[in-house]
């Protein structure tokens, strides 16, 4: 049995201190739905685990605020997905949680931990003999030129094409969420858009978090665009599958005119992907099937495809277009 140190602190400060003490070889364990899996696969072999499951202060969430929604990092995915206010006023956020994983996983997984879910790239998870720059920097990338059907077409590099697998972070990206973190150096706030890195030459570095830095809460600015929103997830089966393409879309419309459009993409990019060009193209115009389609296409102008994932350009564009029309329908009924 591989042994590792294990700490289960009762306060955030104690947790951060435990992380700092064991840094850089410690991992935070929350719901365990990703980390235990990767430890069993021998992809992760931490020397120390800091279990944050007893940090009761981080398990609460509040969707009633007038300025922002606040989610403790240790709140369960299933609890937040079931929140009625969220379902009504921010369906994209609720749906991104409902459509993720399975009920069992959602009951365990936390919304803070979920942000850090690692890629499902089979070459990354498969271990030897597959080269993987994310798992073993400098070893190469088996996915490039390989079975890349599920891989990214946006934000890729010559080192890595692994797709960011999550849904929740994509929906949060559409709403410009912010993360509060704590480390021995104090607190800081990170815009969700800055949390994840593109792989570049260093695909093993997936976020800007320091090894001793703990996400304590997620804050989402209140917006009326929340009501006219959706998380549209297209995948190979109706449940328990990762997105081939997904779009979190939120709209503010005035009559037929788009005053605000927020579009973030999942399943197609190396990180949660904000499609700002597509958003700008919609601003001030009428949202029609045609303009929705054009926005969808615009989001993929920079796409780089591989052997088997070329279809994601068309699927992604259609997913955005359909999501925009779903959101528009909700704008009318709200």
């Amino acid at each position: 049995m591989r042994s590792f140190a294990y700490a289960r602190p009762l306060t955030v400060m104690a947790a951060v201190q435990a992380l700092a003490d064991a840094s850089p070889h410690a991992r935070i364990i929350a719901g365990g739905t990703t980390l235990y899996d990767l430890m069993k696969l021998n992809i992760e072999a931490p020397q120390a685990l800091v279990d944050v499951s007893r940090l009761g202060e981080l398990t609460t969430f509040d969707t009633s605020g007038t300025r922002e929604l606040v989610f403790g990092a240790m709140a369960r995915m299933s609890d937040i997905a079931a929140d009625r206010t969220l379902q009504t006023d921010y369906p994209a956020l609720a749906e991104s949680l409902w459509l993720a994983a399975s009920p069992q996983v959602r009951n365990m997984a936390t919304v803070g931990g979920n942000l850090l879910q690692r890629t499902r790239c089979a070459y990354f998870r498969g271990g030897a003999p597959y080269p993987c720059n994310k798992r073993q920097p400098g070893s190469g990338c088996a996915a490039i030129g390989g079975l890349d059907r599920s891989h990214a077409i946006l934000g890729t590099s010559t080192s890595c094409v692994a797709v960011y697998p999550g849904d929740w972070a994509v929906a949060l990206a559409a709403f410009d969420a912010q993360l509060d973190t704590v480390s021995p150096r104090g607190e800081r706030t990170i815009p969700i858009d800055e949390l994840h890195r593109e792989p570049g030459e260093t695909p093993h570095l997936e976020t800007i978090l320091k090894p001793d830095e703990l996400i304590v809460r997620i804050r989402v600015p209140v917006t009326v665009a929340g009501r006219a929103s959706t998380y549209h997830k297209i995948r190979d089966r109706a449940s328990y599958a990762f997105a081939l393409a997904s779009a979190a879309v939120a709209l503010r419309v005035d009559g037929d005119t788009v005053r605000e459009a927020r579009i973030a993409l999942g399943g197609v990019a190396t990180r949660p992907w904000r499609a700002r060009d597509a958003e700008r193209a919609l601003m001030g115009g009428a949202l029609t099937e045609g303009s929705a389609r054009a926005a969808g296409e615009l989001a993929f102008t920079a796409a780089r495809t591989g052997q088997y994932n070329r279809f994601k350009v068309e699927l992604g564009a259609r997913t955005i277009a359909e999501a925009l029309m779903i959101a528009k329908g909700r704008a009318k009924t709200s």
Partner: protein
Amino acid sequence: MTGPGPFPDVARVDARDKVRGMTPYGADNHPPNLAHAMLVTAQIGKGRLVKVDTDAARAVAGVQLVLTHQDTEGLKADGYLFANGRSFQSVQPMIGTAIAYRGQPIALVVADSLEAAIEGAEQVSAEYVTAPFSVTLDSEGTEILAQADLPLPKPAFADKNVGDADAALAAAPVTVDAVYDSAPQHQNPIELIATVASWDGDELTVYESTQHVEGIRQGLAFELGISPDKVRVISPFCGGSFGQKNAMHAQTVLVALAARTLGRPVKLVVPRSQLFHNTSFRPPTRHRVRLGADRAGKIVAAVHEIDQQTSRHDLFPSMATDTSARLHGIPNFRSRERLRRTDVQTPGFMRAPWEHAAAFAFESAIDELAYALDRDPVELRLANELPYDVVTGKPFSSRHLSECLRRGAELFGWARRRMAPRSMRETDGTLVGWGVATGAYPSVISPSIAQLRVTDDGGIVLNVGVQEMGQGARNAVAAAVADVLKVRADQVTTLLGDTKGPPPHLTAGSWGTATAVPAARQAAIDMREALRKLQPEASNGATPAGILRHAKRPFLEVEARHQAPGAPDAVFDRMKQGLLAYVGPEFPEFVSFSFIAHFVEVHVEPATCRVRVPRVVTVADCGRVVSPRTAASQLRGGVVWGIGGALREASEVDPRYGGFLNADLAEYLVPVNADIGDIQVDFVDKPDPMLNNAGVKGLGEVANVGPAAAVANAVYHATGRRVRHLPIRIEDLL
């Protein structure tokens, strides 16, 4: 001979234990002082071991033993199932240094705990000399063999040539010529393959999960060089199998060897990622189907040509055209089957091993022909029924395919279908497609021995050679006895899956029911006669126990045997050696198949092209239905699997590395509950008058023949897109 029944729809005899988690599976056995094992597998596509370094593994606390090829002296490979062996392939890993495929075991680590065994396994390293390899049908280095030229028994493995198909095709005014591909698949039963082996002196007891305890007993004894009398194999329940567990796997003898070396029991549960490389799988296939018809819709000719993957070391033959030649009454039929040798473990049997892909191809082609003729696809099939088998000229023992089609069409509401593709839509623009396909599966029969004992305290104990792997074998044999003795099925105790009982056949190929039920029924009839002799004046309501008490006899035992019509008695000897012993589907007086018709509705989303299957109607002709509850369950399961095979399932192969990439249940996509809509199943339930005394044919496999084609045909009807490969995914429809 019209047989018994109809039978009542009663609960599974093992239902109560199953829902309470009380059913004992192989790996649930924990003998005292048990040690745990883990395999180490090769990471190259092909080549040779130069060195296996086990020092680090041996240094792990708790590790007791590391076996490599250097520790297997004296061990013999038993041989391949289709070559008079009992193993799923001829290669027995860890005998010698050759690596035939990626994922082949190279070491077994045994430790006091599972955790230590896993850590030890991770510490084993190896050096190899690599060799070029090919793993797909089209890779360079793949060797193409014409099956008819191979040393396989004839005429079973000869090409079929009935009439003059090529001439009839050339003269036909309406033709279809298309190529269809199917992806490799793995069976993936929920219960993993596992072995618990313990020695008592020179006697070995093995708990497994298998479709064939006798095969393992005989194969294991041969490999270890000991008498089969010294080996007992027990597998009373199997947590799903689907062909995967029909022969001996590599780990069994290695675990037995480790247990003997250590002098303590050893258990190994093979993890799913390794299981993708250490069991058989459904090989990928390519089918070229040519059909010719006259303008009135009479199909005059069919040519069915198949390429199927096999391993470099074994010939897993194709038997697909045995069935495609019988799907419809096509008077001129020619087939050509080829094998493509690649560097994989030997592919094998997965539910409807050949027929799943063959029916996808053939029934897609029939659908294409229906559109070429502008004929309703149900009507076209009904118009091409013949009462006899064109291949042999013999009658079918029973053939109710027309009734399956008619009843299915009525239950489905097929009459409301519009023929043109893209002509049916929901109000939101969702494309609706209705598709039909038929299927068939050979009825074959293995020899079977049933022992029945009744006791004066009310005990009725049936000991019969058949394996329960969830399909409901216990229900079927209990129902057969209960029907004759006028008791309830749950009053019959069924003992199966133990080599201490009567020699069991390999339960596979949908022959379990038609093999064991007639023997069980015969035993019950013999028992009824014996009881009648004990008390000729007994009233109709007299129980077996009552008669025994009246006669002052504590118990009564009978034994009955059953074999296929025309089968030589030598089949019993083959069965006792753990070898294949089936006969059929061609019998002296007739040919026997089960038949089925599937009707499928798909909804295709107009933009994102996701395919949903809201409802299916399936009607089967499997002769008499002995266990209605489990039979309906088998049908639904086959349909679910067909939907999975049509839309999701594929084992992914990266030709640069060999092996299978998506080797877990998160990435190998099978349907989830949310993917499955309403499935209505029905049975013709007419006893087969010729095949056996119970009127039963097979069901488990035919359930999975045709549903994938029905889905594909429905997708065509919905979208106008004819997808000629499996699985059909979003990118095929965008």
